[in-house]
């Protein structure tokens, strides 16, 4: 790929969610695409402003659930009918009604595992190192501050022009993010 930019990006700090959302909308309108916002709690409007509509997680969970159901029922069918058929009080070997509870539990179990591990995988967590943590003020992102980071890999990124652009939104501070 191309050579690595000198810095990771520029990080602007805002006091409240409204300022952040308008800055994100502004940056998106100005053509910036490599940007991310960091907030102490989920803000629905940000996903719209950042154009994040696609989310593969529900599909992963659906597939997990279906696999769980098949595995649960399959386990019971294979052990009771094929591997070790045994007549219990004249019940059919494949006693479907009795097999429903375990099938259901396996469905929920695998679907829930897919939801958690799918979410972590899609988010790239655990992530032991990330450049934004190099900015000391970033520790406030988990308390009461709202950050917008325009990354240096954005084709429009320019150290000075982007800084001037961010300052138009009157942030508390704009800092350069080291790699």
């Amino acid at each position, binding site marked *: 790929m191309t050579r690595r930019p000198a810095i990771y990006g520029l990080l602007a700090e805002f006091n409240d969610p409204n300022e952040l959302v308008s800055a994100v909308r502004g940056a998106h309108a100005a053509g910036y695409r490599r940007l991310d916002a960091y907030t102490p*709690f989920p803000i629905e409007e940000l996903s719209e402003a950042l154009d994040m509509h696609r989310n593969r997680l529900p599909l992963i969970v659906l597939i997990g659930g279906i696999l769980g159901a098949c595995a649960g029922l399959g386990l019971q069918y294979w052990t009771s009918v094929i591997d070790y058929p045994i007549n219990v009080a004249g019940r059919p070997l494949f006693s479907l009604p009795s*097999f429903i509870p375990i099938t259901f539990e396996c469905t*929920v179990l695998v679907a829930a595992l897919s939801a958690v591990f799918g979410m972590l995988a899609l988010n790239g967590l655990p992530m032991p190192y990330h450049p934004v943590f190099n900015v000391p003020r970033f520790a406030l992102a988990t308390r009461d501050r709202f950050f917008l980071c325009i990354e240096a890999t954005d084709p429009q990124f320019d150290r000075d022009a982007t800084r001037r652009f961010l300052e138009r939104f009157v942030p508390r501070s704009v800092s350069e993010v080291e790699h």
Partner: protein
Amino acid sequence: MSAPLPEHPAGPIIGPGHTFSTVTDKISAVVLTRKTPIGWFIGFALSFSLLMLFLVAVTHLVFTGIGIWGINEPVAWGFDIVNFVWWIGIGHAGTLISAILLLFRQEWRTSINRFAEAMTLFAVACAAMFPVLHLGRPWLAYWLFPYPNTMGIWPQFRSPLMWDVFAVSTYATVSLMFWFVGLIPDLATLRDRSPSRVGRGIYGILAMGWRGSAAHWHRYETAYLLLAGLSTPLVVSVHTIVSFDFAVGVIPGWHATVFPPYFVAGAIYAGFAMVMTLAIPLRKIYGLEDFITMRHLNYMARITLATGLIVAYGYMMEAFMAWYSGSPYEEYMILNRFSGPYNSMYWTLIVCNVVVPQLLWFERVRSSVVALFAVSMVVNVGMWLERYIIIVVSLSRDFLPSSWGLYSGTVWDWSTFIGTIGLFLTLLFLFIRFLPMISIFEMRTLLPEAEVKEELA
């Protein structure tokens, strides 16, 4: 989007004057900076002593065998199953609060869901002790799971006891994940705010590098909602399957179709009583009255009352069906409950679970912390008695008078039971000391500043 919350007649869900920083600081300070109150040390010491009692009881049990308990023929299920059902029922309120109330968008759940979920986990841990210890050879508990083995056999999948294994282990796993996923953003807060290097390291590892990115929040919220959607039928299925342990049997007093809904309602009833029992002293000791307000206690009292009425309906149906079935064994079972050897327990149960909770109809009772605490303790006792009555009365008098026999718990039964209370409280004390007992990031979203105003943006 949504209009700002109007003044609610029942009072606010968060005290006035709070901001993002005060909410964060106040809740995280309990873990990070505030001096641990002396009450914590006293409480922890007492609970830990009870946990040591559990250690003694279990050691004696493993060395000697389950003959040290009071169980016999015909009452082969005594305290162990009573306590199993009692504990697992208590756990259900945690999932109800975190999952079902989330789906119904009941915002007031936010300040109680974290420790209610912790309560679920610890209650499930206590519950799981009993069936495993009841095996007699607990080190062979892995035989319960289907794994390819040299004996060439498989578990009996047509048995409700096997369904229980899957239900309880799934429930424990999903509750743990739900709780942990809810904790991740708060662990990141602790990481960023911990004054000590060790704290930053440990919370940092647990937070897994969470940085609050908008893209992450987007998937996080989806995952959380999906987990809530999965937990809701799960929690209903767990106590339904627990009730199948009884309902699928043919013993008089067990073989009833009302059992699943009646058990689920009873579980929620017991669980909410336990949440109140824990929340009332906690908010007082840690000064969290701004976050766990009277409105929360009032709502929990109403849910307790509503589920209590369903439970009362269950008791009436048991009596009605015993008469309506025309089966002499069922009739005898209910008369035996009313006037047999365990009748004092039965009537105490009715007083605890049906009569006393009617006090919750009164606004004055619902707004008095002391009264609520007293009622919730009474319900805790009542629900334990309910399981005792269902299990012991039915087993001690089944079809043949020649196989009748009485049961009472021995000192080891009581030690094990009280010991699990020690386990539960010890875990709970450790939890409130080392993890935020209220979800910080969800509390932030409840503040009026969290609202994004469209016209500005």
